[in-house]
């Protein structure tokens, strides 16, 4: 069993821990005595839906979700951090993926301490706000995979930036120089063991440099579509969660998302749920 941690854009949504399933364009989460329904349009719901597709395809148990409502004030995120701090050390997960959550270094560190106390250390994947907090805390090497886009790679490469909003211009201008940004991120210990960089070409890298580049199929419109990065991270969560080797899972995640994206025949107005439903066909071709 693997788990995904994140938020949904509804302040009334309670802290919920439970297994998920997908029905149409709706994610269902069992928790707090009832089943919660969340539209799969972007964010952690899209990530979980992609991870669920992997599990269903391979006949594996569905992922478990740690979710809370948060529209940006951080109150929900702090309640979720607290739940994680209190419960993770007694849990068993093959992988743990952290996603949209209010970046908070102090709470991040508390959660990481709880992870370190788990009897079996899960594969740790960080994306979005939690990746920002992980980098800012100086604990990036404790993670197995970060999944930045190119702008976030520049943020990881900028040792002084606490958030992508503060990435210095001379580093941002290195957008087309991924190898240098990767080297700089590792040079300052601001990267996880592996990087899966999402972009026009997806890159898999580690401290030695770029290991693999996945650029096909190439569908330009995907860049504008909110949630495409969440799909890749969800696929990675699913594949590592069911036991795949990390580099293989990174490469496959990039390929599957590209195939599904192409199959959706998107334009920049396409919604991410239209891509997620093509994941099974893409998995068919990967086999």
């Amino acid at each position, binding site marked *: 069993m693997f788990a995904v941690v994140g938020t949904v854009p509804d302040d009334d949504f309670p802290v919920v821990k439970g297994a998920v399933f997908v029905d149409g364009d709706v994610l269902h989460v069992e928790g707090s005595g009832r089943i919660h329904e969340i539209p799969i349009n972007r964010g952690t719901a899209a990530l979980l839906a992609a991870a669920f597709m992997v599990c269903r395809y391979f006949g594996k148990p569905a992922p478990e979700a740690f979710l809370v409502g948060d529209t940006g004030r951080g109150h929900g995120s702090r309640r979720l951090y607290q739940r994680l701090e209190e419960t993770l050390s007694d849990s068993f997960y093959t992988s743990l993926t952290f996603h949209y959550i209010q970046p908070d270094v102090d709470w991040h560190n508390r959660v990481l301490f709880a992870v370190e106390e788990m009897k079996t250390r899960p594969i740790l994947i960080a994306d979005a706000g939690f990746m920002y907090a992980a980098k800012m805390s100086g604990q990036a090497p404790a993670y197995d995979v970060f999944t930045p*886009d190119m702008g976030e790679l520049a943020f990881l490469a900028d040792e002084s930036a606490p958030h*992508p909003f503060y990435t210095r211009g001379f580093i*941002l*201008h290195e957008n087309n120089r991924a190898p240098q940004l990767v080297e700089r991120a590792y040079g300052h210990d601001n990267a996880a063991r592996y990087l899966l960089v999402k972009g026009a070409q997806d890159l898999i890298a580690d401290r030695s440099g770029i290991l693999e580049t996945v650029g096909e199929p190439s569908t*330009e419109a995907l860049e504008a579509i*909110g949630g495409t990065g969440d799909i890749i991270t969800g696929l990675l969560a699913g594949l590592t969660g069911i036991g795949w080797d990390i580099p293989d899972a990174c490469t496959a995640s990039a390929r599957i998302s590209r195939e599904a994206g192409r199959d959706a025949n998107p334009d920049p107005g396409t919604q991410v749920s239209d891509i997620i439903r093509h994941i099974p066909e893409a998995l068919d071709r990967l086999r």
Partner: protein
Amino acid sequence: MGFLNLFKRSPDKSGSGGTQSADRGIMVFDNTSEVIRAETVIRENGWRVRVMGPPAEIRTGCDLVIEFPLIEHLNIRRLLEDAGVEPLQTVPVTGPLLEPVDIFFTKDFGAFLMVRAANMKITIDKQSSVIVNISGGGCPDVPFLAMEMVGKKLNDAPRPCSIGHTLCGYALDLAYEEIQRQYQCLQ
């Protein structure tokens, strides 16, 4: 919004004519939306201040502060008290502060136009100005902002600065203003 003056099109001339950091202070607030409200109030009353990144010792993860001329501390403090948006603390500036990114990337998809500011992207239908997608970011107000804005015309959608609370929301507001400017040029 005044804070958009941070960007290169309108370079900041903060305070009374480029004072040194020794004459500057920063006001720290509970969250980013309070920073935006306070900055609006201060600017509406004639002071020129800058929204910046906090120094490392008071940084928590998703922060902005307001840099202001220390000599105006009491006046600004009184103004903010009257407006009901009081800072948590006020401290002198003792070193360089982080500056927000100031670069926009624009991509023309033919029928669609996308603008990126920092880590946030907004895409519109060029003919109707309907916001068709919002992507990027990592703070939890991003899915909320997308839910509230996608499917609406630029002028009908809520401003990210009015309903967002984080640096990602702030960045999206910058992208929003830029794409609105570019859309008007297209008309």
